[in-house]
Every structure is written in C-alpha cells, then in structure tokens.
C-alpha cells in the first residue's frame, strides 16, 4: 500500500471539486483530487446543452465548455488521480485521510489535514418511487439515457414517455426528439412543473410535447421490452381510476429527483441533515468531523452549476481558515421556518458576510423571504415568484449578523 501526504484531499472532480481544488491550490496548499471516472468535469461532460456559466463565467456555455474552463484553470502543482475510487474515509494514528483504489497504483492511503467532499449526487430510480408493473428493459433514469446518447452515441429507444418534469427529464425530451425518437408525453405528479421555466418552454412547448401535471405512471407493461405504460391522474386511491390512459412506448425515462451521494460520508459517521440528505455543515461548510468539508451537490442538490461553484469557493475559504487555525466567530444556528424545505448552511458566522441557499416548499407569486432572530426581521427581500425547483439565495451582511449574535435565525417564505 502506498502512502501520500498532502494538505487537502478533494473527492470528486466535478464542478465543485475542481473549483475548490483550484482555489485551495491558488492559496498555496498541496492538493490532490481523486476522481473515479477517467475524465475530469463529472456530469458536465454529458450536458452538451447550453445554459451554463451565466453567473460564474458571465457567458453562456455548454456543460463540456464549462468543464474545460475549469480544467484550464487547474494549476500544474495540483495532483490529479483519475480512475481512482475512494473506498472509505479514515481517521487513525496517521491522521485524517482516505483509502483509494486504482488499477494503476493499487491501494493508496491518502493522509491530509483536510478533506473536501464533492461527490455530487445520483438519480432516484424506479425502486425509489415504486412504479408497479413488470420489469422489462427500456426503463432508464434520464441521466443514464443522457450518458448513452451524448457520450456513447446510442439512443435508448424510439417511443418515449418521461416521468418527472425535472430539468434532466426536460432536456432529455428535447434531446430524444432531436435524435428522431417520438416523445409522447411528460408525466408530473405535482400540480406544477418541477424544472426551470425556461426548460419547459424550450424543451416541451417548442416540440409540442404534452405535459400531464398531477399524473403518475401506474403500471409498466411488457415482458422483454417496455410495451406500454398506464398513466393516471393522482388520486387518493392510487388506483387506475377515471381519466387513466395507456401510451404505447418502448422506453420510459425517469427524472424523479436527485439524491446527494453520501455513502462515504455516512459510513464515516458524519452527522446528516435529513432535509437535504447531505451532511450538516457549519458556516464554513465544515461537517461534524473537524477537517472534513462539503460543497456542491453532495451537500444539497443545486439547480445551477454556477451556484455549486460559488459554494465550492466558499468551501475553499473555510478550509483555509481551518488550516490556519482561524476559528469562526460564534454565531448561532440557522433553521428553516414556514414554507422553506431547507437552508444551507445551518449556522452563521457574524465575523463576515454570509451566503445561504434555501429551497422553497411552495409555488407562489409575490412572496417575501424573511430572516428573523426571534420576532425581529434582520433581513428581508421580495421574491416575484417562488417554486420548489428554483433555489433562493440570501446574503446577510456582517453587520446584520453581528446584531443578533448568539441567537437562532429562522428563514421563512411568506
């Protein structure tokens, strides 16, 4: 077994991992990035549509272009280990670190003063939403279908139904249409779309693909390959009732949500946040394990890569402070209040400006974001429209936070 000693180990070379690694290397730390694919850039590589980078690079890029920009920023001193999988995190007499498997170098024990978790997320699948029926081939998560089409050059099938109006599902509706498949419809359980509005317009409306809101797939038929699916309006009985219909198709794509990929985190005993499925973090984005930080989709699922990169930069700052022994000023917890599913991070530091990302629970026009310490509103902003699929950002000034130091902040949408 080989041993590698470094300052910071970054796990995952997607947008968040690369961004935090770049920033940390720029600060002069010795950084290693471990990545299980043999390419850098993570999921960006298969997102060949545009719409990335408007905030972070101030121009519209495709996913691979965005990844290339980041890769271009990588300093030479950075040690990259592609095709390498972290088996587990460890904390023993050799300090904090990880065991890493790779075909080229066998098993390497990394010892580092800090770790950045940037493993991203994975897709929810058929089992998670238990669609009844048979188990033929032709049922794919939208991301897998995207990989097959955009990287491998294969089309999953010719007649497609898509479950879930999340962004990947919408993007795939357009992509499948472009390669000559017929997308019959998109089925969404909620009474509102769960993807970005621009994607509904550009990926469904422009292609005349019907969106069935408040509907679910209640059965998959076919023994070898999918032959048809039954679609029903949502009802309390969960059965095929009035309004149900059958669509003949050979492919069912599932875009039914993403889950932060925290197997390593959980096994290491890090405290988890059940609202985000990511680790609990303090104002520096440090988890319950001193020296272990998290950013990007492993922390909570972001809408835009630009936000994930911004968060990764903040994470790098947090790591730097930790390594320099700068303790954050004592602030207090930040909790989600009315109509807020979660807020990240779950703590604030009155020593600097603090940025928070939160996820609304409701669809509403003319709403207001309010952050309160007790009954006193310390921050507020009007939001023309909120919906669960669009994350909300709030930056609280150092001065506002100083005033309420020690108190719990509650974030609500009203």
């Amino acid at each position: 077994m080989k041993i590698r000693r470094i300052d910071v180990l970054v796990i995952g070379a997607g947008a968040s991992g690369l961004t935090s690694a770049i920033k940390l290397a720029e600060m002069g730390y010795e950084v290693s990035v471990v990545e299980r694919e043999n390419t850098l850039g993570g999921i960006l590589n298969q997102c060949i549509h545009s719409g990335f980078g408007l905030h972070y690079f101030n121009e519209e890029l495709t996913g691979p272009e965005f990844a290339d920009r980041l890769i271009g920023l990588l300093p030479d001193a950075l040690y990259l280990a592609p095709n390498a999988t972290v088996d587990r995190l460890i904390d023993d007499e050799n300090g904090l670190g990880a065991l890493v498997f790779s075909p080229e170098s066998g098993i390497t024990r990394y010892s580092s003063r800090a770790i950045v978790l940037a493993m991203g997320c994975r897709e929810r699948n058929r089992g998670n939403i238990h669609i009844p029926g048979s188990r033929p081939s032709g049922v794919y998560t939208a991301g897998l279908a995207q990989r097959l089409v955009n990287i491998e050059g294969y089309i999953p099938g010719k007649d497609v139904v898509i479950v879930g109006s999340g962004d990947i599902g919408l993007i795939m509706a357009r992509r499948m249409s472009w390669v000559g498949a017929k997308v019959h419809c998109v089925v969404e359980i909620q009474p509102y779309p769960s993807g970005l509005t621009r994607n509904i317009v550009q990926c469904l409306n422009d292609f005349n693909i019907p969106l069935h809101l408040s509907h679910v797939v209640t059965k998959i038929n076919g023994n070898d390959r999918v032959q048809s699916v039954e679609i029903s309006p949502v009802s309390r009985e969960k059965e095929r009732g009035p309004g149900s219909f059958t669509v003949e198709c050979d492919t069912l794509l599932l875009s039914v949500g993403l889950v932060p990929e925290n197997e390593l985190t959980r096994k290491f005993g890090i405290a988890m946040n059940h609202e985000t499925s990511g680790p609990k973090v303090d104002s520096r984005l440090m988890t319950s394990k001193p020296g272990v930080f998290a950013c990007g989709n492993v922390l909570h699922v972001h809408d835009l890569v630009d936000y994930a990169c911004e968060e990764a930069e903040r994470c790098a700052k947090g790591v730097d402070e930790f390594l320099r022994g700068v303790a954050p000023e004592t602030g207090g917890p930040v909790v989600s209040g009315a109509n807020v599913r979660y807020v990240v991070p779950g703590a604030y530091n009155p020593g600097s400006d603090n940025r928070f990302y939160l996820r609304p629970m409701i669809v509403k026009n003319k709403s207001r974001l309010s952050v309160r310490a007790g009954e006193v509103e310390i921050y507020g902003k009007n939001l023309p429209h909120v919906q669960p699929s669009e994350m909300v950002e709030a930056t609280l000034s150092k001065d506002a936070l100083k005033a309420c130091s020690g108190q719990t902040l509650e974030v609500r949408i009203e």
Partner: protein
Amino acid sequence: MQDSFDVAVIGAGVTGAAIARRLSEYKLDVALLEKECDVSFGVSKANSGIIHGGFHHSGSTLKGRLEIRGNRMFDQLENELHFPFRRCGILIAAFSTEEMKQVESLYAQGVANQAIGIELCNSDRMLALEPKLNHDVVGGLHAPSGGIIEPYRFVFALVESALKNGVRLITEFEVDRAGRTGDLYDIYAGDRGIKARYVVNAAGLFADKVSKLFGAEEYTIIPRKGEEYLMDREAAALPSRVIFPVPSRVSKGMLVIPTAEGTTMLGPTAEQTGDKTDVSTSEENFERIFYSARRLIPSVSERDIITSFAGVRPTLPENDFFIAVSERRPHFIQAAGIQSPGLTASPAIADYVKDLLKRDGLVLEEDPHYDPEIEPVQRIRNLDIEAIDRLIERDPGYGEIICRCESVSRAEIIDAVRKGHTTLDGVKFYTRAQMGRCQGGFCTFRILKIISEETGIPIDRITKRGRGSYIVGGRIGDFDVAGAGTGRV
C-alpha cells in the same frame, strides 16, 4: 447439432442444476437444456432464498421429507461451491393465543421431523433473539437450522461444478418437439436437436407442457405469484434471523428476510395468476407487504426500498412435489411442482432423482475424476485491504470499481462475462453489479462496454435477459429525424 447423451435434464433452474451436478459424479454424458439465455433465469432467480427449518411441512409429504434432508446438505455444498449461505435461524412470531396454538403444532411437527435445535419461545425469549420484533409478540418458534442463501448464485455454482465435471449446458434451447427412435428420445428446439436415453423433466413452470410434448403424464402447473421488496443495506429493519408470521393455509406468509448479502427483503405474497409469465408487481400488494412486515418489525420503512420484483411458483393441485418415473413413457423422470421448499430440498431432490434413474436401469459408475470443488470467485467486497492490494498487483482490473454501490470491480465483471453471463441480468446476478441502491444508474453503460469488449457482441445487440430485451434502440443517425420538433437551436 445432433449429439447423443445418456441423460437430458430439461430446465436449468435449481432443480435441474442440482440433478445435473449430481449426475456429473458418474461416467455419464449429461445435457442440461435451458430455454433462456442463461441459467437460473426462471423460478430460481426470483424467490426468497430461504433454507427452511424443517417444521412447515409434515414428514408424510415428499416435500417435507426432502426439505429436512436437503437442509442438512448445505454446509458441505457451501464448502465445495462457495455460494453466499448463512444458517442464521428462523423465527415464527405469534401475536395471539390462537396463533400460539398454531405455533405449538408447527413445533410438534418440527420435533417429529427431527428438525435440529427447534425451540418453543415465550415473548421474552423471542425479543431476546430479535430485539427489533414488534413488542406485542406473545411467543413463537425458533428454528436455528434455517438459513438464507443467494438462490441464483447457488444455481450458478451448481452449473459451474456440473460443467467442470463434463455436463454440457445448452441454452436458448426451448424444447418444442420430442419423439423417440429406438432407445433414444429425439429432443428438438426449432431446428436444433439432441438425443438422449433418459429424460428428466425439471422444467419448472412449464413442466406440464414438457410432459405433454413427450406424451407422459398430463397435469397442470398452476402459477402462484409472489411479490417481494428489496431494501437498502442501511435499512434499520434488518433483522438477524428470518422472521415469519404464523402461516396461513396456502402460504408461509410474508417475511422479513436478512439476505445472505446483507440487504433486507420483504415478501412474498401468494397469488394465483392465470399467466406463467406475469411477473408484475401491484400497488395493492405493496401495501399488503408493508402492512404485514411492519406487524413483525415496526421499523420497516418504505424509504429504504431499492427495488421490487415478482416470481412465480410452479405448483400442483396436490401441493406436493411430483418426482417419479413416468408410468406412461419409458425412462422419463418427472421432477415437477417444485415450489417452496424446493430450493432447500434441491440437493435431496437430486439424490432422489439419481436413485430413481438407477432403479429405472441407468448404470451409475463413479467417475474417478469427479471434482466436487469449484474455484472461489474473488470479490473485493469480501476481502481485506492487503488482499485487495495484492489482487490489483496481479490484475489491475480489481482496482477499477465499476459498481460503486456494491463494490464490484472490472475484473469481477470480466470474470462473469467469461463464464458465460453475457446479459445485464446475468452479470447482475453473478456479481451484484446494478443490484445496489442506484440500480445501475452509474454502471450500466460501463457493463455494456465490458460485455461488448469481451464477447464482440455490438452494444445494440446486448440484452437485459435475452429475447427482445434490448438495452438500446439504435445508434445516433439510425432514426429519421425529419419533422422531429421545431426547437430553437
């Protein structure tokens, strides 16, 4: 193909595989015929994997006797064949005095069957054996000789051992015609044919059809469907023993099972269906299974579901095995109606069929080259760090993790493909890749590539499990894109 064999075993499920391996101990030419493209793709792949404890069935039934005998054969089989197996024990939980009465009669039946270590328990004892049990438990039964295995891995190992000892496996051979020339049966699947002196009908759900094709006994296999739910490794409900409710007249009830690979499984239902190929699951049974499982272990949670599936039991109206020399056709052995406890009984069924063949005139001369052992498969998830490091040095493929959920390396996938498992399901059942919580989201395309590299099968010809179960519909450019939308570019 026009080969001649001493014995043709029809059906490469657990029954046929166990029989073929048993016969491979003798100087015999044995063919194992399977209609699917891989073994264990029928009844044997979708069941609960229970090694039963010898108390559910009366010793007056054939299945009861073979269950007891089969149960005792698994330790040696495990030593020889290295499949996942654990004698974790079985508990039956009673929640009323009426149910406790039934438990007492099962206990008496178990004692009469000489089930090893069987024990009648009060509620304290039950909760000590399984603290996760519903605290309303009033008592129950503990059968320490019961256990769990991975059923498909058991079948794969039996077949591998049989092949090593000279059995010939012929897949995608769905018997559709049979005749007899002189002392030999002619057995056909489409334009392919073989000859055999003896035939063993282990065709599972289709044993009735095969029997009829040969002009042997007429009977009807009644399909009885069972739905099951597989839960995450981290599920809080994972018990240490198999937990049964008190059985009903038609089935042993829905269980909470700690699988041999560390996941939790719930089910099965028992439902007569008219269709032998119906392996669909339903919303209604989802609710029944979870209701029933929570009654046994309250911490069972829907949030832990990884996947669901259904299997079909091949039952006969008498509800017993039908294993006999045909009275209507010469040298034709029936091994039909092998439902639960068929998996447990399978090695004993193989012995029993071997004896029937001998009595029917087949000469059994021991093969001095017979080797009961197969090479254990290297699986990195079962090895310590030093051993994995040595393995990677020998073969770098062990260092490339393909399935992250179940820790399966490239070398293990290649091993499965080289052993003939060339479909996605074949690789899944052999290696567990795609079986974890992401259900193939990350590894499917990598496995497709490995299968294609190893076999030369183009990716668009690879299937999930044979026939028309293709994974991809074509290559980019294959479909006509005219009129496909008016999107802004």
